[in-house]
């Protein structure tokens, strides 16, 4: 089987087995997270504060490592800085041997997963018990965690009951979540009481005081850390922050982002060895007389394992700010459908896993799942420490592209005037150069459309470019938007009479494929007194960037800025129809252009309905636009448009023109640019689209309207009726 087929088969299997539980759980957590963020007034302030603490801490990491060594040692504990997994495992095994420990209880720790600590200790003859119930489930099932916060998120209550009933010798079979919880608690209590040693992770480590901060809801970390008299805490070096002073914003953010709780059930701050009495259940001595601090042993194992190199890598450094809340996974439509067993590497899962796995395991591991990030940006606002997760995915994709062996390049040579090295995937180069494809397709339309859709061509495209043959291809128009605009003699609003002057950005889709929405945009702007220009401006770089072709995107950004700068200087507004292109100007160009250029362009660019909204707010005559007359529509906003907070503008304008608007609560259509075309992801794309389909299918009378090109294509595939862009509904010439 080809790689694409294998990938498709793996995804199909997960859709059948794990999707339902994952989708239910992530949907629930997302709802709770939105509510929890909304009721927290200082949310943005806390995010900024947390971000600043992390930036500073990673900057000063070597100093903090030295400081925590001093403070832990002053408290009476030991610090070991492990270079890599083998080093950490060897040290922990030594500690275990020195104490003749036979059983060990553990609270949840992704870092020990990264080390494969359990396997290592078990091979050394130690019994290891996970006490977090989710970890316990995956330990019993002998599976890998599928989520940073909920390791067993992919399992339903029934599946866990089946597992426990088969694995344990029970008098009565277990059935409900309460029965399962009670059984696991009692079983693990016996293990905790007997344990010779406790191992925990750490969510934060306070350098000044040598304090381990643990966030849990179950209370297992508390029990594991203080019941046995020896405690080993294992933490990546990035968990260090200076002191308790800096901890506060994280405590307000972490549970909110993870599960939508205002505050964690238990926020434990331990500066070991702690005074708390050790619990010897065989000794008949009251707690106050039991040995406490004097008898306790504490080791802090700080793990490097690639982190120092990540810190020195300008693009991956941000990954180290991650507090592993899992919100990026929950907010991701692809994750909601396949979960961490597909969308994850050796240890980490979800969008940020790309950064972790690239830094810790290497590009090969990251390459196995990196393409599941479509760059939709829904995780960007979810991240409590404001990590640009899609950017990390893009950069890693770029590095993966550059690592691949060269072959077959000649096939797309003429179509790919990009700045990429030879050897990257043919499929990626093809999609990355969509503008050239569209130009050629339009020039030879309708012939190009007939040929492209003919059976043999589709077979060839599937084999060479990996374009799934079940997907409809875009139909190129012979008359482009610019040709139409020139043919009608330019703008119908003379400059002398105009209230404003705008450049309509004719992206390749609007110019060559969905020309109707471009025409409508011109007429709508003119109806509101705007003198419109439609100059030739290069593609924004969105297409190559989504394939990880950063160098090409960078060249495009410069070319776009070059072509638009004079317009901006002349006081013309830049109006963009396609939300993903506007998102380039407003988000990614910050990384691709000099600061001043970025600011000038992003501040003067608008999504088309955002612009219309502004015109109406400033007194333009709404009556010049088509009247909705109470007609009912179902509106789907674009992911990047939502991230930029621009969905509300479209809704407000349509509402003001008398449309009865129902907005989708499903955030992602599943198409995401080229993603839905790719043979390995076609079925996943349609599965994600299924959520939107069921939502809109409940309202068959409503006309479907969408802002994004990809969303329009996907909705066209999901429903029989054609889909229009909102600007077409406002077109005074609409028929």
């Amino acid at each position, binding site marked *: 089987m080809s790689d694409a087929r294998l990938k498709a088969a793996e995804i199909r299997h997960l859709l059948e087995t794990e999707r339902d539980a994952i989708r239910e759980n992530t949907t629930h957590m997302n709802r709770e997270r939105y509510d929890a963020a909304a009721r927290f007034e200082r949310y943005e302030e806390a995010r900024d504060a947390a971000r600043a603490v992390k930036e500073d801490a990673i900057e000063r990491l070597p100093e903090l490592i030295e400081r925590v060594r001093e*403070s832990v040692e002053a408290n009476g504990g030991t610090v070991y800085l492990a270079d890599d997994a083998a080093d950490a495992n060897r040290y922990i095994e030594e500690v275990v041997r020195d104490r003749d420990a036979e059983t060990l209880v553990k609270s949840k720790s992704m870092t020990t997963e990264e080390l494969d600590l359990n396997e290592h200790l078990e091979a050394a003859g130690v019994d290891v018990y996970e006490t977090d119930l989710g970890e316990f489930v995956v330990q019993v099932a002998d599976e890998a965690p599928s989520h940073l916060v909920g390791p067993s998120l992919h399992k339903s209550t029934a599946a866990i009951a089946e597992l426990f009933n088969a694995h344990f010798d029970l008098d009565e079979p277990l059935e409900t979540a309460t029965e399962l*919880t009670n059984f696991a608690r009692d079983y693990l209590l016996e293990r905790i009481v007997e344990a010779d040693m406790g191992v925990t992770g750490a969510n934060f480590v306070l350098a000044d005081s040598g304090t381990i901060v643990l966030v849990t809801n179950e209370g297992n970390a508390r029990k594991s850390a203080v019941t046995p008299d020896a405690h080993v805490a294992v933490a990546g070096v990035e968990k260090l922050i200076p002191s308790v002073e800096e901890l506060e914003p994280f405590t307000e953010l972490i549970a909110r982002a993870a599960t939508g709780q205002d505050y964690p059930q238990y926020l434990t701050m331990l500066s070991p060895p702690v005074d708390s009495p050790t*619990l010897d259940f065989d000794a008949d001595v009251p707690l106050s007389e039991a040995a406490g601090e004097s008898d306790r042993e504490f080791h802090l194992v700080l793990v490097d394992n690639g982190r120092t190199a990540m810190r020195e890598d300008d693009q991956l450094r941000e990954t180290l700010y991650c507090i592993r809340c899992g919100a990026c996974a929950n907010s991701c439509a692809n994750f909601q459908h396949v979960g961490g067993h597909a969308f994850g590497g050796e240890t980490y899962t979800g969008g940020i896993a790309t950064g972790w796995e690239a830094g810790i395991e290497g590009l090969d591991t990251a390459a196995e799942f990196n393409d599941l990030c479509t760059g939709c940006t829904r995780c960007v606002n979810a991240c409590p420490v404001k990590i640009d997760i899609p950017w990390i995915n893009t950069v890693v994709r770029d590095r993966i592209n550059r690592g691949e062996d060269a072959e077959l390049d000649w096939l797309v040579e003429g179509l790919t005037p990009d700045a990429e090295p030879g050897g990257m995937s043919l499929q990626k180069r093809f999609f990355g150069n969509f503008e050239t494809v569209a130009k050629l397709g339009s020039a030879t339309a309708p012939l190009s459309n007939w040929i492209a859709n003919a059976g043999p061509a589709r077979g060839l495209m599937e084999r060479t470019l990996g374009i799934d043959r079940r997907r409809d291809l875009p139909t190129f128009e012979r008359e482009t938007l610019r040709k139409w605009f020139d043919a009608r003699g330019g703008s119908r609003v003379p400059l002398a009479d105009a209230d404003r002057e705008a450049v309509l950005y004719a992206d390749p889709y609007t110019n060559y494929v969905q020309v109707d929405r471009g025409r409508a945009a011109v007429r709508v702007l003119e109806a509101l007194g705007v003198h419109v220009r439609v100059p030739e401006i290069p593609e924004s770089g969105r297409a190559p960037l989504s394939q990880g072709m950063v160098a090409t995107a960078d060249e495009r950004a410069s070319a776009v800025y070059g072509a638009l700068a004079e317009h901006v200087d002349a006081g013309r507004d830049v109006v963009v129809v396609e939300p993903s292109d506007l998102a380039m100007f407003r988000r990614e160009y910050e990384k691709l252009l000099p600061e001043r250029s970025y600011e000038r362009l992003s501040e003067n660019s608008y999504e088309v309905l955002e612009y219309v909204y502004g015109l109406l707010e400033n007194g333009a005559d709404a009556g010049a636009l088509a009247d909705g007359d109470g007609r009912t529509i179902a509106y789907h906003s674009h992911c990047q448009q939502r991230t930029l907070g621009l969905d509300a503008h479209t809704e407000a304008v349509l509402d003001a023109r008398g449309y009865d608007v129902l907005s989708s609560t499903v955030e992602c259509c599943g198409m995401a640019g080229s993603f839905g075309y790719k043979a390995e992801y076609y079925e996943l794309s349609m599965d994600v689209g299924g959520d939107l389909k069921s939502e809109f299918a409940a309202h068959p009378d409503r006309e479907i309207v969408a802002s994004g090109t990809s969303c329009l294509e996907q909705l066209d595939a999901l429903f029989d009726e054609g889909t229009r862009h909102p600007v077409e509904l406002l077109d005074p010439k609409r028929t």
Partner: protein
Amino acid sequence: MAVQPQTEFEAALRRQGSSWTRTTSDAFAAAVTEAIETPAVATDLSDWGLDFGDAPVTVDPTPRELLGATTGVTGASLGVSSYGSLLLPSDAKGTEPVSLYPERHVAVVSESDVVEDVPAAFDRLGDEFAEGPKSAVFATGPSATGDMGALVYGVHGPKAVHVIVLTDR
């Protein structure tokens, strides 16, 4: 619960499903008797000037007695109004295990130690850490898990929390 919350703190306790009693130090033993389910154990609170009197609790239990208890009574050094959180010190008398092992936790807090919100609590913590490293737990409501496919209370920690607010302190 019929009692109406009189303060922000009590309103937050109600939101998290916890119960509370307002009382004075004099009536402490009676309040404990009412709040516990036996068998009950407690940490020694004489340093707070509190006497368990004839309340049916084992003060300063052995680990075995702790394991067998249904209720654990401890002091809390701080309360946080916004979320109903309690700060439980990891001290030598065993506040940590007594508040953790039994199914029911009864926490005793002085009303004057209840602060408005998390930033205020961290101001206090900052002062304490300035004197030396500290160990404590912010506990907010009962222990909980969703790992078995639905929300269940009472996992490794208590299933129910009751707070005795001492209004004269």
